[in-house]
C-alpha cells in the first residue's frame, strides 16, 4: 500500500483536503489501484478533489447518466423484447417509469444547485432484447451496477439532503435488482454487503451500452 501511495503523488494531498471524505476516498482509490495499477488512481483523485463545492453536482450528473441509461433500457425493452408477459412485463413498465422519475428528479436537483444536467447519452443495447432471458440478464447487470454506483458515490456527497435523496433512490435500485434476479431464478441478494464501485469502474461497465 505504501508503495502505491508513493507512486501516485495525488494521494499525498488527501490529508490537506477534507479529512472525513479522504478516509473513504483513500480506501476506494487504493482498491482501484490494486485492481488496475496505481497509475489508474491519479485521475480519480484529481476529479474528486479539484472540484470543491461543485462536487455534488458532478456526482448527481454521474448518477443522472446512469439513470438515463436505465430508463432508456426499460423503454426499449418494453417495445422490443418478444413475448414479455406476467410479472416481467409489469417490472419493465413499473421499473422503467421509476427510472424516469429518477431522471427527472436528478435533473431538477442539479438545476436547483446551479448546475447543468448532462444530456442523455446515445445508447446501443446490442442483442439485449433478443429474448426474455437475455433481457433479464442485462437488466440484472444494470440494476446491480446502479446499486454499486450509488453506494460508491453517496458517501462523497457533501450535502446531507442529497445523501438522503441518493439513499432513497439506491434502495429502489436494490429492490429492482432483487425482483429481476428472483424472476430470472438468480439469488436476489447475492452478498450480505452490496459491493461498491467507483466512477471509473462504473463507466467501464456501461461502456458497451453507449453508442460510439
Amino acid at each position: 500500500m505504501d508503495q502505491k501511495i508513493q507512486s501516485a503523488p495525488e494521494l499525498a494531498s488527501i490529508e490537506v483536503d477534507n479529512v472525513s471524505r479522504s478516509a473513504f476516498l483513500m480506501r476506494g482509490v487504493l482498491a482501484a489501484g490494486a485492481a488496475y495499477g496505481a497509475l489508474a488512481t491519479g485521475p480519480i483523485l484529481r476529479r474528486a478533489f479539484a472540484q470543491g463545492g461543485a462536487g455534488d453536482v458532478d456526482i448527481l450528473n454521474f448518477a443522472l447518466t446512469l439513470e438515463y441509461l436505465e430508463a432508456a433500457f426499460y423503454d426499449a425493452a418494453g417495445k422490443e423484447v418478444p413475448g414479455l408477459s406476467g410479472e416481467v412485463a409489469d417490472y419493465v413498465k413499473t421499473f422503467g417509469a421509476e427510472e424516469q422519475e429518477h431522471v427527472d428528479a436528478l435533473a431538477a436537483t442539479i438545476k436547483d444547485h446551479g448546475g447543468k444536467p448532462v444530456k442523455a447519452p446515445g445508447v446501443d443495447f446490442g442483442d439485449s432484447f433478443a429474448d426474455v432471458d437475455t433481457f433479464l440478464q442485462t437488466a440484472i447487470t444494470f440494476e446491480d451496477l446502479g446499486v454499486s454506483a450509488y453506494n460508491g458515490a453517496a458517501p462523497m456527497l457533501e450535502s446531507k439532503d442529497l445523501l438522503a435523496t441518493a439513499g432513497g433512490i439506491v434502495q429502489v435500485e436494490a429492490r429492482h435488482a432483487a425482483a429481476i434476479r428472483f424472476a430470472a431464478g438468480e439469488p436476489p441478494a447475492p452478498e450480505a454487503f452490496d459491493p461498491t464501485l467507483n466512477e471509473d469502474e462504473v463507466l467501464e461497465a456501461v461502456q458497451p451500452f453507449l453508442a460510439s
Partner: protein
Amino acid sequence: MTAPTTDPQRSALRRIARDPLSRRKFLALTGGTGASAAFLAACGDDDDDETTTSTTDEMATSGDPLADFGEGDLGIVNYALTLEYLEAGFYAAVAKSGLFKGNERALIETIGKQEQEHVDALTATAKDLGGQPAPEPKAEFPLDSAKEVVKLAATVENLGAAAYLGQAAAIQSPDVLAAALSIHSNEGRHAAVLNVLAGEPVTPDGAFAMGADAQTVLDEVQPFLA
C-alpha cells in the same frame, strides 16, 4: 402490479413519514411532483443529528431514542445492531419452525445468514468505535403459518430498510456510512423479494424509498420484544 399494501403497520409508517416538513424539504430540493414527494421523510431531524459530541447530551435530554444506544455513530450502530439481532433471531426461529420447504426455505436461510453477517459486522464496528456492542434483545415472533410468516418477514425487511435510510444522513464517519449503505441496499433486496412472495409491490413507496426515524421503528418492533 399487485394492490398497495393495507398492512396497518406500514400505513402508520407512511403517515409519519409524510409529515409536511419533509414534503416541503423534498419539494424545495427537486421541484418534484406529488407522486414522488415525501422520500426525504424521517430526515426532518437532520440538523439535530449532525451534531458533535458536545451537543449529544442535548439530544439525550430532548428524548432522542438513539441516545439510549450510545453517542453519535455508536448510537446509530448499536440501534442497527439491535434491529439486526431481531431479524437474525426471527429467521432462526422461522428456520426451526419447519414451515418452509425447498426453494423458499433456502431463500429464508440465506437471508437469515446475511442478517447474522450484519450482526457480526456491526458488533465489530461498535467495538472499533470504542463502544460496548448492544446486547441481543429477547424476542418472540408469531409463527403460525407460512403465509403469515412471509407477510411478517416482508414487514420486518421493509422496516429494516427504512430504518437504515432514516439514519444515513446522520452518520458522521465515512467508513460507517459506507458500511451502512451496503447493508441498507441488501435489506432493500430482502424486502423486495419478500414483498414478491407476500404478493406486495416490489417498490411500495414508488421511485423514492422513504426512511423511518428511530422512534417509529422502535415502536414498530416493540410488540415482538419479550
